[in-house]
């Protein structure tokens, strides 16, 4: 079929004016920058292998991590740049970090999440769901097979914890009573919708998002994903739901319509995505070859660029600081996203928290 759409040529000229301006504003990547990163990462990988094989290699790893990471980074995490406290899981256990930088190891737990006001922590270990206070004292336990991903929500007087166990989504009251199974679930952390109603988004299969009104026991909405979903997250006002996959991230409104999307090109993929502070904008970590960029998927704003793997995006409770975890450099990088742009780096993360650390939450209480 030979076909020309209406006003095709006029539309082309109008679009070209805008696209050309966007092209003129971009900063091309020069040859040395394009090729320096692969060499740097190759060196890091060689050094990591060397470290595994011989103790003297460890000093080489440290030197290279310093070369890759933020130059002015602090030698340790001395303090957080914003109010609140961090929960960190790692192979050594669960850690609570206060704004002044003090750290407390709460015990050997696998996953964790803050209570709604940060006064307690829900955590999991081999066959137990556990509620802890910030000192690490156990308030109650519930024996369930291999529980995962506790998510705690509600008001000061009435809360619920959603978690996964035995291939089922389960919900228990904040005092440990009334535990019950809801339905089949895929291994992805569930996400409570912020707001007065108890509404939960979870993956009923690896590619099927279910939004459930827990009090009514009614499915509000189901949405299909083209690939396995890795993360669900609500905007802070509860109006938008982020469904993250490495190759096709979508943002849905309250009627289940996709209002934003991110489709990385064939040779790239996203490692994480999150709503920007309290806005409806989404930032993503895009892995491309040997480098990673943190950018806004709608505006294209570049927040940060680094060599190697950037792993996680976590926003401070006030929405002003973005924490980017950077395993290649063994650093955390805090980026001020509003007002004057500031970057604060903290080094030697694995020495402070143990290997394979992940931020499980940055919450409210000081």
């Amino acid at each position: 079929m030979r076909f020309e759409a209406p006003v095709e040529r006029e539309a082309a000229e109008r679009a070209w004016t805008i696209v050309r301006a966007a092209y003129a504003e971009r900063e091309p990547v020069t040859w040395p920058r394009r090729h320096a990163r692969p060499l740097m990462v190759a060196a890091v990988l060689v050094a990591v292998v060397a470290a595994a094989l011989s103790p003297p290699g460890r000093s080489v790893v440290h030197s290279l991590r310093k070369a890759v990471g933020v130059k002015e980074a602090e030698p340790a995490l001395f303090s957080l740049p914003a109010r609140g406290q961090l929960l960190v899981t790692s192979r050594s256990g669960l850690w609570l970090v206060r704004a002044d930088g003090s750290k407390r190891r709460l015990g050997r737990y696998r996953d964790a999440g803050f209570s709604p006001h940060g006064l307690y922590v829900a955590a999991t270990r081999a066959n137990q769901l556990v509620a802890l206070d910030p000192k690490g004292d156990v308030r109650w336990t519930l024996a369930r097979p291999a529980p995962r991903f506790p998510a705690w929500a509600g008001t000061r007087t009435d809360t619920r914890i959603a978690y996964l166990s035995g291939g089922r989504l389960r919900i228990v009251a904040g005092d440990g009573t009334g535990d019950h199974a809801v339905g089949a679930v895929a291994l992805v952390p569930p996400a409570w919708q912020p707001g007065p109603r108890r509404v939960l988004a979870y993956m009923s299969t690896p590619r099927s998002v279910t939004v459930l009104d827990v009090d009514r026991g009614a499915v509000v909405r189901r949405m299909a994903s083209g690939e396995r979903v890795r993360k669900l997250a609500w905007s802070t006002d509860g109006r938008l739901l982020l469904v993250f996959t490495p190759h096709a991230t979508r943002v849905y409104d309250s009627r289940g319509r996709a209002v934003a999307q991110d489709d990385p090109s064939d040779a790239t993929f996203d490692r994480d995505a999150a709503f920007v502070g309290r806005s409806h904008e989404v930032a993503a970590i895009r892995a491309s070859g040997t480098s990673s960029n943190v950018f806004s998927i709608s505006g294209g704003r570049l927040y940060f660029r680094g060599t190697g793997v950037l792993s996680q995006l976590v926003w401070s409770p006030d929405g002003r600081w973005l924490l980017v975890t950077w395993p290649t450099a063994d650093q955390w990088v805090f980026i001020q996203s509003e007002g004057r742009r500031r970057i604060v780096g903290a080094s030697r993360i694995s020495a402070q928290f143990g290997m394979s650390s992940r931020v499980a939450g940055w919450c409210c209480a000081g």
Partner: protein
Amino acid sequence: MAGSGRDERAWVRRAQAGSASDFEALFRAHWGPAYRAAYLVVRDAAAAEDIAQEAFLAAVRALDRFDRRRPFGPWLHRIVVNRAIDWARARALRPEAEQVDAPAPERSEHDDELLRELGRLSPEHRAVIVLRYLLDYTPGEIAELLELPRGTVNSRLRRGLDALKERLR
């Protein structure tokens, strides 16, 4: 018309290095198919222009990260068609009483009828027919572009064509 694979890789390479003329060549080669594909799915010239333009802006943002070994067209068309489907679905949920559109170029009566009937298919059926018969993608390529099982693409093609044939009788 899109350039050959070799032309296209050269345009992408030189555009990445900052050559505005090569970026323009890339734009000129792909604007028509992208805009037409969007138009055939959404049936609204202004929306099609926005969708195709947004896809090119996404291409500008991703240019440095784009792998030159891969063809540019399929990546662009995937963005265009997915966004067009989303737009058409949203439009279907809030239908407007009257749709005023730009005047169409002259076409034969048969083409007009075909396009009108194409517009009555669901966005999902329209998208696979546009990709198959306007942009010449194979069913396997459409399956990859839209992240659908190949059987789904084939059944949508068959049902879409059957519906068109029935309505054009």
